[in-house]
């Protein structure tokens, strides 16, 4: 399986361990990733909330670059996923808009055709590789590990454009955790918001949301929490102590990226997965599965 790989800004700055572990896991699984190194930021919420034409044009460029490579795009960021899926969807449905955006792209010698799909690594694992085939690759089952799944808003909602999982009772990440031999923790916060998108502008609001998520997972006796998005990871890991303080509580919950958790199951070395690249130490998790960093 070959993909155009779009890591997103966060995996290239705040969460380099995500980018590194994704590449390690891809090598192990035989996924051929060619990084879209020349692609721009998908605009998070800020660009789409402020300059729609630019948001559409920059993302259409990224999609057109993948089309040129004749590959589908895979990303490790839920917000990038939604932005790219949505631009693809809107440009495919609206010929007038497509013409307008292609007029912009023609100035750099590119054309968007709507020929590639956009997917997330979680979807690739369960839909393209498949649970059964993946299960055969698990050489180090994570028995006894209680993992809180944290889906992230933009991999679930809006359902009509994403469509992979049920936003009201999502199961995909739970399935993956079970497949790794670990135990998915049931808690109310798994489909809720981490607050990241107002972290810069309204830190107080953002931290209360992430604080609630951390405490919910901790009360459910999770050993760690797994994210599908580096933005969720950022509000839950580096900001963890500040977030917990907003509820007058303390938190000590390791936050692991999806490719890192999978990598452990695939038998990869903790250093290869950069498990030391977090603010909240991963040591308790490694102890639980009888590994030391």
């Amino acid at each position, binding site marked *: 399986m070959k993909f155009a790989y779009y890591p997103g*800004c*966060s995996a*290239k*700055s*705040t*969460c*380099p*361990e995500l980018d590194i572990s994704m590449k390690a896991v891809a090598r192990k699984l035989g996924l051929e990733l060619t990084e879209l*190194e*020349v*692609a*721009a*930021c998908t*605009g*998070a919420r*800020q*660009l789409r*909330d*402020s*300059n*729609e*034409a*630019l948001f559409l*044009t*920059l993302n259409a*460029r990224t999609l057109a670059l993948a089309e040129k490579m004749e590959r589908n795009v895979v990303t490790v960021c839920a917000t990038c996923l939604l932005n790219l899926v949505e631009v693809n969807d809107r440009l495919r449905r609206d010929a007038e808009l497509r013409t*307008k955006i292609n007029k*912009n792209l023609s*100035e*750099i010698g590119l054309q968007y055709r709507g020929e590639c799909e956009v997917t997330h690594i979680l979807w690739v694992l369960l839909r393209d590789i498949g649970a059964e085939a993946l299960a055969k690759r698990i050489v180090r089952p994570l028995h006894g590990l209680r993992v809180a799944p944290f889906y992230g*808003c*933009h991999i*679930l*909602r*809006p*359902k009509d454009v994403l469509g992979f999982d049920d*936003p*009201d009772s999502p199961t995909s990440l739970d399935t993956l955790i079970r497949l790794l031999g670990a135990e998915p923790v049931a808690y109310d916060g798994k489909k*809720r*918001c981490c*607050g*990241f*998108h*107002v972290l*810069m*502008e*309204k830190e*107080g*609001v953002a931290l*209360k*949301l992430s604080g*609630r998520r951390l405490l919910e997972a901790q009360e459910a006796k999770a050993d760690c929490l797994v994210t599908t998005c580096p933005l969720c990871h950022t509000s839950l890991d*580096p*900001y963890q102590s*500040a977030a917990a303080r907003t509820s007058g509580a303390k938190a000590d919950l390791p936050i692991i990226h999806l490719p890192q958790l999978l990598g452990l199951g695939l038998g990869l070395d903790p250093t290869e997965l*950069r498990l*030391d*690249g*977090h*603010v909240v130490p991963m040591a308790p998790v490694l102890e639980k599965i009888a590994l030391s960093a």
Partner: protein
Amino acid sequence: MSSRESVSAKIFRYDPATENSPRYETFEIPFEKEMRVLDVLDYAAENCGVGVGYRWFCGVKRCGMCGVTVNGKPVLACWEKATPSMVIEPLPNMPVIRDLVVDRSAFERSTLDMEPCLERRKPYETFPEPLTHTDFEDAFKLMNCIECYVCTGACPVFADADHRQFAGPASLVQLAKVALHPKDEGDRVALALKGDIYACVSCYQCSNVCPVGIDVLEDAIEKLKRRCAAHAAASPEARHARIFSDLVRQFGRIHPPTLMRRTRGLLASMRKTLLALTMVRRGKAQIVPGSASGMDEIRKLFDVVEKNK
């Protein structure tokens, strides 16, 4: 009616005037085909000898009065299908008057604060005025809103952060409905900022629960935010969007420390020094911004978009 099938409804009961805390009562109710949550509540009230408090008027998704929470999801009782096992609770984020009846008045006041009436200053040019479907399209989508406040019940900005300065999604839909009207001349940016629109976390819970299928986030809130951004001086948050965009132009991608410094200023950013140092130590912050390659093309597109506006 099948004699075997039944619905188990665990219903929230609470009378703040006489009780210290809420309790739940479970009723077994005979299931009928196409039964709605409202039918279950009717049955419990009429046949189970208990005066469950709930509110409804039309029963056909028009009046917006029967919002409740079913198995954790805010819905309209009249439209939501009954399932074999349900926990029925009041809408979140609003004080309980009794049982499933909530006091929406704080949010109704937020709606009034958004002054959701068309404001015309110039005299009509002709009568009737020429208005096309396309002119109307954006506002029209929002005219389906039945003001049920189910979206506001689903909003984490209240549930998790209790941030009451925020007008909430339902009130912002009412604001957007007039703001997007082609003939409106009111100062809607000022009102959106008064409703603290940038407290919205873009989680799509409002869009996810809307009983009439309005994409609340994209078709109302985001369109208002775009209008706020067009008046960049109007607020620090709109300025932040501008800074974000400038960073993409400069580097192709976001360099978080630069974004923070430019948004909050050097002094306020210094308060994050300890966190920044920890992040640098773990390889989670780069002091010098890295660029995407292909910057020529990215900058060119910024110019082209500006030119073709």
